[in-house]
């Protein structure tokens, strides 16, 4: 996919997109090559999908944990009011 086409739907400048492409290239998840005036990107292996799954999983896990923390705090309130260390 050409970098210009890639940049089109994104709310950022072509220069910014190029910068990101370089980061992705250094990370090993994108390969790019220049043919004439057009730079084309190719996704490499499953690194990206795995990374996206990782982010989604961490986020989802913490959403659940913070919900459980809320339930735990409410439960504490309902039973014995514990001592509060804050003045």
């Amino acid at each position, binding site marked *: 996919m050409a970098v210009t086409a890639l940049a089109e739907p994104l709310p950022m400048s072509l220069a910014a997109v190029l910068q990101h492409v370089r980061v992705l290239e250094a990370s090993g998840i994108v390969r790019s090559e220049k043919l004439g005036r057009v730079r084309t990107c190719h996704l490499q292996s499953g690194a990206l999908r795995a990374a996206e799954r*990782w982010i989604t999983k961490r986020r989802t896990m*913490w959403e659940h944990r913070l919900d459980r923390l809320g339930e735990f*705090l409410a439960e504490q309130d309902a039973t014995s009011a514990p001592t509060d260390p804050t003045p």
Partner: protein
Amino acid sequence: MTTAPVAATTGRSVVHASFVLERIYPVTPGRVFLAWSDAEAKARWFSCHEGYTLDFRVGGRESNRGGPPGGPVYACDALFHDIVPNERIVYSYDLRRDDTLISVSLVTVEFTPVEGGTRLVFTEQGAFLDGHDTPGHREHGTRLGFERLLAELERAACET
């Protein structure tokens, strides 16, 4: 002769990403902080596994182990870097599946008093290594993922 079956086909990669979660709890910062600092309290909401330990002090560690019966063991080991009672906790942790390192992250948890309770802001910044994750189901949506990742990187750049 043994050869490592990895790198030859998959290669190495690092992806950096971060996410932020926010919650408001209708209790004081002291109460929320206690739920993070007391081992017994934290085990109640944080871990659903048996092998959980917490040594809550700067330089102290937290360890969490678990996984499906007969399947791989996931291990999460954290180190506390900064503790400001009732205000802030900073720790780093690594995540392993058996002997494979999946990711290394920095986590900042901030507690701020707001009207009627406490705002908790959870920020995780991670380095995801070599594309290791649950083996198996490889999914579609590659281009969408690429764009989302770009957005994520853009946001990360703006936040620093």
